[in-house]
């Protein structure tokens, strides 16, 4: 069980879902597991957020869904990335990395802004 929960930034969940599907179709439960495990149980996706997000992405044609059988032989809905989804993931990744790099650059600053007053 997690020690503390981190709130998702808006839009972050979408990119995580897209990432979770990179290796092939998955059902919703597997996606939560994927995010939890890869975040070291820091990021916990609530079902109430996950499924609407999945359906929204499906509606936007970033994901395609199909019914299939789970590993334990149960009927489950599998989502896979569409071409548009893959493209979206690439763009989000690039944005995210640029963003993260920028944020981390700022956070690792060692001196204040060279303002006019100090010039």
């Amino acid at each position, binding site marked *: 069980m997690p020690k503390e929960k981190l709130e998702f930034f808006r839009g972050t969940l979408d990119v995580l879902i897209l990432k979770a599907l990179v290796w092939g179709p998955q059902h919703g439960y597997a996606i939560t597991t994927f995010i939890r495990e890869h975040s070291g149980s820091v990021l916990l996706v609530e079902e109430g957020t996950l499924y609407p997000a999945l*359906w929204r992405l499906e509606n936007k044609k970033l994901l395609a869904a199909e019914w299939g*059988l789970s590993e334990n032989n149960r009927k489950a809905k599998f989502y896979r990335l569409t071409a548009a989804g893959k493209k979206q993931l690439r763009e989000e990744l690039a944005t995210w990395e640029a963003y993260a790099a920028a944020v981390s650059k700022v956070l690792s600053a060692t001196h204040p802004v060279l303002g006019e007053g100090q010039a």
Partner: protein
Amino acid sequence: MNPDPNKPPLWRRYARFFGADPAADAREELAFHLESKTEELIAQGWSPEAARKEARRQFGEIRAIERIGAVMGEKMERKRRLKDYATDLAHDVRYTLRTLRRDAGFTMVAIAILALAIGANIAVFSVVNTLLLRPLPFPNAQQLVWIAPPPMKCGLSCATYSSDAYDEFRSMSRSYQDVTGYFAFSDQDNYHLTGHGDPVPLTAIGVISNFFQVLGVKPQMGRLFTDADAHASHVGASSAILISNAWWKHQFAADPNIVGKTVDLDGTQATVIGVLPAGFDFGAVFSPGTKVDAFTPVNLDEGRDWGNLFTFLGRLKPGVTVEQARAEAAIIAPKLYFNAKYPDTLGNYKGQVIPEPLKQYVSGKLRRSLIVLWSAVGMILLIACVNLSNLLLARAGARSKEWAMRGALGASRARIIRQLLTESLMLSISGAILGLILAAALLFWLSHQGSVALPLLADLRIDSAALIWTLLIAITAALVFGIVPGMRMARINFQEALKDSGAGTGQSRKHERIRSILVVTEVALACMLLVGAGLLLRSFLKVVDLDLGFQPSRAAAVIVDYDDSVPNDKTGVLSAQKRGVIFQQILSRIMAIPGIQAAGTSDYLPLGRNRAWGLPIPQGKNPQDYKDLVGPLVYVVSPGYIRAMGMKLRGRDFTWNDGPNSPGVVLISKAMARFFWPNEDAVGKILVGRGNLTSPTMRVIGVVDDVHADSVEGATGWQIYYPMTQTSPLAAYLVLRTTLPPATMAASVMHVLRTLNPKQTAAEFMPIQTLVDHANSPRRFFMLLVVSFATLGLLLAALGIYGVISYAVTRQTQEIGIRMALGASAGRVQRQVLTNTLRLALAGIVLGTAASLIASRLIAAMLFEVSPWDTNTFAAMAAILITVAIVAGYLPARRASRIDPMVALRSN
């Protein structure tokens, strides 16, 4: 985790058998999540019970999420369906365009057939819409009523009312907002506009001053009549006129400053007080086939002693029904005076004041004709649909492999039917567009047929109702002609179709049977149309052949202007003498023109307007015995008129010696003579009544043929002829009988008239035949339309027969080849094919005849002296159909007889 995509599990195939169910999908998806979670917790050491609880707890508001899922799923499903549909449709359309282009011949024939059929339907619908469905072109037109007596034999004089009757009826009635009327006896070209070169004839109608207010017509410029205008006006000399929009444009070049200008009408200065709107066409509503250029206000007081002058029109108060108005009129009528000066004229109008909706008066008589016309085009459309069905079936036969292939590749039957319906729809929509163009052209032509005596023709146009109708019939037609081939195609056995062309198999035999049924239907429908058209045509010929009592051919009339006024002529004797001199001179000069056989004048012409005065009775008889009879139509004529009209006369004609001071003489019609003196010779007998200018008695000097004076087809009333030198005529139509075509005489006749009277207007030279044609124009109009529709139907039926027989021959090429190889002669083969054709045609004719026997009762009222079961017509139509069938079957028959057995056997 990843399911095998090539092998959907069994449940998947039936999971959404009854269509998508997004709510269930969401529920199941979330249930799977819960179960997985629970299992994981159990694996972590939770007890099953606790694990289930915990999983639920973590999930939170599961129902709410389910609902979101259901809503979103629904949305996606809808989008998907729409998109599927759009893609399929686009695909179908593209595919159809491709196939139709490939089969250009078929496409063109199909579209042409549909365009003709749909075009005819649109045109007739527009006519029906204008004449029957749309209200008359007046505001609140449903309030307008026409007030007239029941039809009688004495023409217009018995369809009109006097000034006194108008005033009394107007003040006694409570049902109307107002009552108005117009002078019913104005003739064409009754005025002359002078001051601009040759006098220009024009037609002006006198109206009661509130006429336009009652109709709700607002002037485009200027003002309408007032009571003051009416009081200031006199017969033939009106100080104020309103002009029609058309005449304003035509005669005054749409002069924007016309209002207030004076024009010279027959020597009177009349002020143009206003221009009527373009939407008001008096002729179109009240006097079909004529044009009215101007209106003058009627002075009611002036005409009080002149008898019946006006037709009545009223606008009912809101909420008052025609029945209420009728009941009220029945009570008021006996209280009306014909002439208030004479108390014994009280009650003359008893039972003779009957309001009916104006619309009913204008187009009610046409109702049946229009419905027949409508049915005729409906049948045309049916025939066209049957034909198209047939063509499509033939094509379907040729395309069965294509469909089988598509079926084998996974197209569902529904999809194939849809494809076929798309084709049908595209064909019928194309046909409808072309049909609209055809109909617009036809309607344009019709609306410019000013001489056809049908009301509201100029109003014909394609309006939104007609467009909706077009769309409706296009879609209906597509469904009707697309459904049979569609069903057949969908039922095709794909395997069998794929194996071979299918020639000689049960499938195409079945096909052929359906096609034969269709052709029989088609022939039956064509037969019904032909019988209807034949009956109408025969009626028309009977009407044309009718002995009208005069000879219209090689006779013409022109209106003669003359001035017979003599100052201080109290009795009219002096002006009668002057008139005699003028016309004796005119007629002698006219008779001198080579080519003129006979000439004479009359103030009214048959089949035009007419009038009656009271009934004269034989001398010595009791007037009470003749109380309920109506008077004869009156014609004031010159010597020579009877001969010029080609009427047969027993006795003598008038001469110039029958002057105002000599004993009164008259000519009467046969029917009148027979009635008064059943077993005696009427010639020489004395009548008492309105005699000549000086005495009430008149001697019958001759008996002439009964003339169809009021209508060609209606029963003939009585006529009486007065000499123009003993009674005042209202005008003088010079009637000429010529040896040459009348038109060639026009110039020389006009020259004579001009020489004698420089004021003579450039009047129209009107063949008497035109009068008859005008009277017959509605019948001719309907007959021509029905006959052309029947011809179209016949053509389509012929096409259908040809198609089926031709197809059968193609299909049986091999069989025929074998038979010929075994010794059948070419003639025999040909006979066989023709026999098949005739069998189809006969079946159709028998069916059609049976249906016609029932249906022709519906057109019985439109027939004239022809029985709806006229054997000759039925036989003739059957003969025509058989002939056409033989011609249609002959081409394929000849082809069959020329089949080379060797080639036929070798080819497949």
